[in-house]
């Protein structure tokens, strides 16, 4: 285990940011800390880096107790949401910063900087200043700077949060590929469930200062430990008093056992997908259903038709019935 967190708690005045956090981050993997803003995930990341102190508990990095170590002695690479670039230095000097502090020989530093810039595809920007780069390029520079010191762990705090959707998607794919190449133990914080599901080997869901669930993306999506995890990781709707995913509902044009009968009250088509709103005959909230356009057409569905709904792939999670 590369990072071991035991009993970590942190308060800001009356606000409990983290409460009794226990977590093992496996070596060489990409772990996502996922949760809503203000849930404590960034605080946890900053505690691992030593940029914030825990009120209680211990942090162990690669077997060494780091709880009392200052940030500069933890050998941790940290990437900030807003890049934290050294504006008065060129890209190359930014990347060289950590190496120059370690008093490495000049030619060795230059070689390592070249290697890092090649890794993040910024070779031709070595002599530019951060202000002359785009957001995505600046974040890649920050990543090269953090990786240059060969950190034992790489920590990223909402690394793509300040970028627009398209660049974010590109960088996400690129981070995954980079990680497959470099294999440094990586923890990144995000509030975007799609980002976590797509990139991470392991996801830690954090809400209101507590860990809700730890697992692989598949485990979390298919076997959520709580309604919170279920609803945070994807769309949900209520069917017969239970939370289910809209695409896990089977729509039948004739009666089937254990089903809810209702009328299609809204029909929205988005590309290959059809979203239905079905109002149960017995009353209650409308049920949201997602199916492919082909499925909808094959069943001869249209707005106003009567349908029978039932859950197809019931999640085996322990989630409880929705309170009335």
């Amino acid at each position: 285990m590369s990072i071991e967190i035991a009993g970590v708690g942190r308060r800001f005045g009356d606000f409990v940011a983290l409460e009794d956090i226990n977590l093992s981050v496996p070596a060489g993997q990409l772990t996502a800390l996922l949760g809503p803003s203000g849930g404590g995930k960034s605080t946890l990341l900053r505690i691992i880096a030593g940029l914030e102190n825990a009120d209680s508990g211990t942090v162990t990095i690669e077997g060494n107790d780091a709880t009392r170590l200052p940030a500069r002695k933890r050998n941790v690479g940290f990437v900030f949401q807003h890049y934290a670039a050294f504006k008065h230095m060129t890209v190359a000097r930014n990347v060289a910063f950590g190496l120059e502090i370690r008093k490495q020989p000049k030619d060795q530093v230059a070689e390592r900087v070249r290697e890092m810039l090649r890794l993040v595809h910024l070779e031709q920007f070595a002599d530019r200043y951060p202000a002359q780069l785009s957001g995505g390029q600046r974040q890649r520079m920050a990543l090269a700077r953090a990786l240059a010191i060969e950190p034992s762990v790489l920590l990223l705090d909402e690394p793509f949060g300040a970028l627009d959707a398209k660049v974010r998607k590109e960088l996400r794919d690129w981070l995954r590929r980079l990680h497959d190449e470099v294999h440094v133990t990586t923890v990144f914080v995000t509030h975007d469930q799609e980002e976590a599901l797509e990139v991470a080997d392991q996801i830690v869901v954090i809400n209101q200062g507590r860990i809700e669930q730890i697992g692989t993306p598949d485990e979390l999506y298919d076997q959520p430990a709580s309604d919170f995890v279920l609803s945070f990781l994807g769309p949900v709707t209520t069917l017969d008093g239970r939370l289910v995913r809209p695409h896990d509902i089977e729509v039948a044009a004739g009666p089937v056992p254990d089903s809810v009968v209702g009328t299609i009250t809204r029909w929205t088509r988005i590309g290959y997908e059809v979203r239905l709103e079905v109002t149960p005959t017995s009353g209650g909230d409308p049920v949201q259903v997602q199916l492919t356009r082909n499925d909808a057409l094959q069943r001869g569905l249209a707005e106003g038709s009567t349908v029978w709904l039932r859950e197809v792939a019931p999640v085996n999670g322990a989630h409880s019935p929705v309170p009335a």
Partner: protein
Amino acid sequence: MTTSTLTRVRRRGPRRRARAATALTPAAGLGLGVALIWFSILVMLPLSAVVLTTTEGGWTTFVETIQQPQTWAAIKLTVGEAVLVTVTNVVFGTLIAWVLVRDHFWGKGILEVVIDIPFALPTIVAGLVLLSLYGPGSPIGIDVANTRVAVFLALLFVTTPFVVRTVQPVLLELDPETEQAAASLGASRLTTFRKVLLPALTPAITAGAALSFARAISEYGSLVLLSGNLPMRTEVTSVRILTYIENGNMAAAASVASLLLLVALFAIIALDVIARRVARR
């Protein structure tokens, strides 16, 4: 057709920008004209007049005036004290700005206002305040009247706000995350200050230092009362210039004034060079 229009527009973009760099729009031309006339009347004209008055007396008058022992002593004192005050301000002004921006304490709001008092106070009032505090019969038992310490204190009093006020906004704009980034890369507090903070603050510090130096070599009101204006000891150049004028010796007054002008110019250039050096490091 749409495509060709688009490419044409796009191609015209840079060329138009290039032309804008050399040619001015009517509004910009008017603005530049007003700025130049304003600058000429208010700054260039008086400066040239001083230099012209100096040249009227000829080179020998200039050299003789400067070499006159009492004048030379005044120049040495003024420039020396100004340098000392500026260096003090660079250190303590930066420190005060740091405390005001980074620390939270009771009475910070009051301190923010008090810092500006030397700006707002008429200099002769400042002189009176200093005289009653550090002069004969001082309530705190410190009497520095008629000494060089008095000159230093008076100059320090009126120049304190400069560095504070130039550094403060820059410090406010600095992202604390860059310091955290430096720490995570292994930098100590001192290294972070030297390599990350100082280069970012240097332009502001030198701007404040230039203002502080310029004010110090020209100061009159705040120090005449406390310093006693003793020839060869506590007399500063502004007092010296006034004496020349009172004696009707305009050429000599202009000579000293021109020399001060040169010193100020040299100081500004030197500070600019230092700023570039530090920022590049």
